[in-house]
């Protein structure tokens, strides 16, 4: 009888060992969770942009330009409004486009000259790739842009789609006049266009 009981105890002990194997299987499911976390880890490498906020000031350290910004709309003939020519140091932003930092192309205009004086963008043609443009906004943030491209182009060939067309990220266009001044037309023959892209905020 004792022998049988011993055998039974031995069998029960063996059964208890099999329970430990079950725990190991549960532990083996852990790698799955790490795989899941790996799958969830892809960085948000999408486009970075700021929410809409009215721009208040532009600063371009390289050319020493600094101005408050006034809103600009469209004239009756659907051309873009410009700051008053008798205030050549005043820059403005096009309010029918994204605000600076927002997804899409934001537009800031300034005179090269006016009232026989140099304007806010008199030295805009000196800008080069990598130069910095800062735009302060009403929400307290400052949108930092880096110049990606500068071009001088005849007004007759103004690249409307390139300037105002959709962009993948938050971008900025600085526009002024350039080239020769046509005395008869009282207008410059070219435009200087600076293309810049938003530098992702650190925070």
């Amino acid at each position, binding site marked *: 009888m004792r022998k049988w009981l011993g055998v039974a105890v031995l069998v029960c002990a063996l059964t208890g060992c099999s329970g430990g194997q079950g725990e190991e299987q549960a532990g083996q499911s852990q790698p*799955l969770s790490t795989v899941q976390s790996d*799958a969830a880890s892809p960085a948000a490498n999408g486009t970075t942009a700021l929410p809409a906020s009215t721009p208040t000031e532009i600063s371009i350290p390289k050319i020493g330009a600094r101005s408050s910004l006034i809103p600009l709309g469209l004239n009756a003939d659907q051309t873009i409004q410009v700051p008053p020519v008798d205030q050549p140091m005043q820059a403005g932003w096009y309010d029918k486009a994204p605000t600076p930092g927002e997804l899409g192309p934001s537009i800031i205009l300034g005179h090269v000259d006016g009232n*026989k004086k*140099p304007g806010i963008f008199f030295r805009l043609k000196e800008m080069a790739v990598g130069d910095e443009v800062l735009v302060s906004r009403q929400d307290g943030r400052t949108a930092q842009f880096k110049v990606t491209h500068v071009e001088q182009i005849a007004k007759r060939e103004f690249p409307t789609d390139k300037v105002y067309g959709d962009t993948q990220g938050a971008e900025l266009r600085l526009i*002024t006049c350039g080239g020769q001044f046509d005395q008869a037309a009282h207008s410059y023959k070219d*435009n200087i266009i600076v293309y810049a892209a938003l530098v992702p905020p650190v925070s």
Partner: protein
Amino acid sequence: MRIRSTVAGLVLGAGVLVLGAPIALADNSSQPPAPTASPASERQRQAPAAQPSEPSSRVRPTVPTAVPPAPQRPSIVKPVGAPETGGGMQDSSSGAGALVIGGIALVVVAGGGSVAYRRLRKQS
């Protein structure tokens, strides 16, 4: 006594068989994963077994990637033509041109007048 012990032995034997069967099954089912304990094969084999729960966990990462488009792209009204952002540094040039033209006209008129006056004087 012997009969009792025999019956008890049979009962215990049956118990051992009943208890031993799951052990044998458990050993069989747990043995295959044991030799393939390398991490790579483990994931491959366990992934199908966990499929019912995996789809939900695999879908989750795609949800955040689908969220970024949420920042709505602001619309833009494209203006017509090129901006006129220059008044010209020589704004008075047109006035100077008019003065030059006026001056030339004045000289021509004055010259013609003086010629006419001399002719009239000679005739008289």
